[in-house]
């Protein structure tokens, strides 16, 4: 197979801006591929990714699963004799890929630069404020009422029992954001999968796994591996990150469960038994899960935050891409917990303001998911599934050759 080479100079420049400014220092000794605990003997990385990046061969990189399999543990960075920081370069490539796969493009571009931060915060702030204005719920409740309904009348209240007014507004905001994110991720993940399968000559073949087969054989094992943090633990330089990342993952799972439960109880069961509306009982097990998860989320983020500070002190130039997600998650966790505490102690006005900020940060988390580092939740999982697919009997099937 012969590759027609069309280096993309813009890509190289973008790469350098996105934290990969060292990429040109690589002289291809492959120390990184040997050092990398995640790279396999038959499909080593990141040596080849480095030269592809140096040569500005964007398309090859986007379809390269190795780019996502990298966990940025920094072992290669520590051992690189030229200071080329392969791990950082791969991070920059991922940032570039998330941006280039992102839809709509304007939003993706917006998320790539720190100077857009006011806009990035401004969008949800304005949307939620506007919704609050039009909801007619724009007043602080009395302390008595606040103790009873909490923030469930944030967007006002009506007596239409099939759908609480608050739920409607939150659904419009959040499901809208999630909808955009899911669509964008779907597009991106399809493009990525097609690119990855094409890179091994498997894009138009006879035998492909069905969706259940795909999930059972490739996706689910990948997810189990992710939950166990097996690969993170193989890193030597940055093994500490497991202590931050793992609580965070479980916190997200816990909060996801609580959100679904709450949604079901309040917005489905609540239709029939209106008493189900309002905050969850502080003494119910679900609320316990919620609180533990919230604390875990904050603790995990603090650990990751400190870790990044340490890296910066040691000379790593962390980019906006690296920090943005940490900031958002921290925002979600802190404002969520603070809003709850303020509700419990009955500070209405401050509680409402914190809740407003909480909504903003949650919307940022959802809306910007496909363009920020958060996108790795989908793309890395997909690459890990692909890694299994690549070695499976589907690919090895001679009829698929």
């Amino acid at each position, binding site marked *: *197979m*012969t*590759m*027609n*080479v*069309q*280096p993309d*100079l813009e890509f*190289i*420049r973008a790469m*350098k801006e996105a934290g990969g400014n060292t990429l*040109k*220092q690589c*002289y*291809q000794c492959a120390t990184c591929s040997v050092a990398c605990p995640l790279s396999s003997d038959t499909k080593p990385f990141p040596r*080849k990714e480095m*030269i*592809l990046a*140096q*040569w*500005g*061969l964007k398309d090859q990189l986007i379809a390269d699963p190795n780019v996502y399999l990298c966990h940025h543990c920094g072992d290669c960075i520590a051992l690189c004799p030229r200071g080329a920081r392969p791990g950082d370069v791969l991070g920059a490539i991922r940032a570039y890929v998330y941006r280039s796969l992102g839809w709509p493009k304007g939003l993706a571009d917006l998320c790539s630069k720190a100077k857009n931060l006011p806009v990035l915060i401004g969008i949800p702030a304005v949307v939620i404020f506007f919704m609050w204005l039009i909801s007619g719920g724009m007043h602080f409740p009395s302390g008595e009422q606040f103790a009873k309904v909490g923030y469930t009348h944030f967007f006002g209240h009506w007596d239409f029992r099939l759908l609480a007014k608050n739920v409607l507004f939150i659904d419009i905001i959040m499901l809208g954001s999630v909808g955009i994110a899911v669509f964008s991720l779907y597009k991106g993940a399809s493009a990525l999968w097609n690119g990855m399968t094409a890179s091994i000559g498997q894009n138009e073949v006879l035998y492909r796994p069905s969706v259940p087969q795909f999930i059972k054989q490739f996706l689910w094992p990948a997810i189990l591996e992710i939950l166990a943090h097996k690969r993170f633990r193989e890193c030597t330089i940055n093994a500490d990150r497991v202590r931050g990342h793992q609580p965070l993952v479980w916190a997200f799972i816990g909060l996801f469960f609580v959100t679904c439960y709450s949604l079901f109880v309040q917005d489905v069961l609540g239709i029939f038994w209106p008493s189900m509306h309002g905050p969850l009982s502080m003494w119910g097990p679900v609320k316990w899960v919620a609180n533990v998860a919230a604390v875990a989320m904050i603790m995990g983020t603090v650990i990751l935050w400190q870790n990044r500070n340490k890296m910066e002190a040691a000379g790593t130039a962390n980019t906006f891409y690296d920090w943005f997600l940490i900031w958002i998650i921290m925002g979600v966790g802190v404002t969520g917990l603070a809003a709850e505490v303020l509700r419990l102690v009955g500070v209405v006005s401050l509680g409402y303001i914190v809740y407003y900020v909480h909504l903003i940060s949650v919307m940022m988390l959802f809306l910007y998911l496909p363009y920020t580092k958060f996108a790795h939740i989908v793309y890395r999982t997909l690459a890990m599934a692909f890694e299994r697919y690549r070695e499976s009997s589907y690919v090895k099937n001679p009829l698929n050759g």
Partner: protein
Amino acid sequence: MKKVYGAYLCTGCGIGAVLDVDGLKDAASDAGIAMKDHACLCGAEGRAFIEKDIADQGVNTIVVCGCSPRVMQQEFNFGEQTITVRGNLREHVAWTGSLKDDGSVDDFLQEMATDYVRMAVTRAQKTELPAPYKLETISKKILVMGGGIAGLTAAQEAAKAGYEVTLVEKEAQLGGKALGWRKMFPTAYPYADLENPSIQNMVAEVQANGKITVKTGTEVARIGGAPGQFNVTFKTAGAASEWDAPAKVTADQQDLINKGELEDPNKGLQKYTTANPDGEMFGAVVLATGWTPADVSQYEHLGHGKIANVVTNAEFEKLAKNGKVPARVAFVQSPGGKEDDKDFPYCNSVTSMVALKQANYVVEDNPVDGKAYILYQHMRTPGNAEFFYKSMQAKDGVFMTKAAVTKVTAGGGALLVDVEDNLLGENLQLEVDMVVLAAGMIPTTAGANTINLAYRQGPAFLDLDLFDGYADSHFVCFPYETRRTGIYNCGGVRKAETMDETIDDATGAALKAIQCIESANRGVAVHPRSGDQTYPDFFFSRCTQCKRCTEECPFGALDDDEKGTPLPNPTRCRRCGTCMGACPERIINFADYSIDMIGSMVKSIEVPDDDEEKLRVAVFVCENDAYPAIDMSGMHRNKMNRLVRFIPVRCLGSVNMVWIKDAMSSGMDGALLLGCKYGDDYQCHFVKGSEIASRRMENIGETLGSLGLEPERCGVREIAITDYDKLPAIIDEFVEEIVAMGPNPFKGY
């Protein structure tokens, strides 16, 4: 000088512990010089012990038997008017053996020591105090051939050291190849950016220097004479002259010419021995005639000469100098495709550097879309050039990969370059506007005389095919030295090199030229026997005009007259003694190194004629590498075969076959020559000595055969100085062969 002898035995360093001191002293007395012993001759007391005899008895010829002559040289130097001969009892004897188990002296070891004592005494009796050969008139001017960076630097450096210089350049202006450069490599920290060429400054400085005479548009027709007295004839570049250097004519060819059967190639030319009365005199010559760009059209798959826009690096530099270069350029560093990863011939590290430099032109001239691909098998950026490599590597538009370039084709208004075995993991096809081939730099000495000597051995350097045409005598061991004493090379004739390296080189060559002139002025050898005051002395009345010495001299030191009698040029001579070894009449000798001396030393070895256990093998050892290797073996306390006797020689080339005959006829059982490697990777300090010696030994083997002796009794072994640990085994093996053959049947006659 009337010699008054004194012999001294040092019993320190373990010598007295394993040897019978009185026995050694008796041996010295028997050989003719009474010997005293001292426990530490090299100490202040020991030296005073000898100096007292010098003062009291007028001793002027001193034999010191103790450590190797390679050590303690200052301690045993008693001034220019005193001869010191050293017998090596420490490294060669005491440190290689021990007492017997019962605590008595080992008679084999003792016999070794007494032989070394006798040889030292004999040497002292036969040696003379040397008197240096002084030229009546000497020119200290330096001729620099070639006005490029190398020549300009050499001229400037020699002038700075106070010497008059004449700089000849065949082109109309000074500057050489550097005149055509757009930029030059970085010369100062951080070595990141190209610099504007400094050649014009260099030219201006040379032109302004009152000590330097510049002759442009001029060539050297011939160089006759010898260091200190080179007679140089200049001519207008390109013109023919009766003083052009004559081609070499062998003795056989001369016979044919004399009989009219062969046309004289030198018709119309002055004879090589004729000195041009109008010639200019110089003391030494720096050869800096540089290089020419290689032709690369033979690599058909790369398309040079057939496909437009496939150019060499030299052609690309010209384009870049004159204007903007194309935006997409591939630099091809190796022509061998997938079969051969060698770079283009004659490139060294320079073409790597040039590709980096020219890649910079591409991205500099095309800031938005410039793309330079460097396709290399080797990226050679030595020393500080690594910084330049790094800075070029950092440029967005510079793409590098190790790669095999298999084909260049023209297609659709562009060139397509097929690239395999590269670091990107797939075969590549690059679409470019231009392909630049990293053609090498061919030294001007490849295929042309260049130096134009009027020497008996011809106008060119000899055996340059060993060095691909580079004018060298030994790149590693003797930098800047050519096979012609007094002529030193630098720049492109020595190696494909960058400007920085050239400047270093040229400075070195200029200093070598000065060293040569000053050595000639003092009448001593310049190198490698620096400071040696002796020189070969010919007893001409017995010369048979056999021409062996004139043919074999590795340095062309000997011219000859019409009859073939050698005409020595002592300042060309390096004192290796190859002529001495060659002479069948044995009429060539040095004051402290003669046929008679070594022959007598051989004969002074005592050969027991009734003990089959005690065979004797004479080993003639080259002083340059083999002798130190034996010393090192001794220092490591390696055992040494006790049947051999080492006799140091200047070079195996100086071994006259009469010494072998002396050894065999005195009843010794074998003779071995131990010297440097010869051939392609020779290590011989005199270039040809060990090669010539092994040829002579083959011949003597035949002679022995005709006498009924086994030819294998005479051998040659090549060793490197690093072989000291293997040496005992090499010697043992040879001796075992002799033992297997049994004693010399002529023993005792």
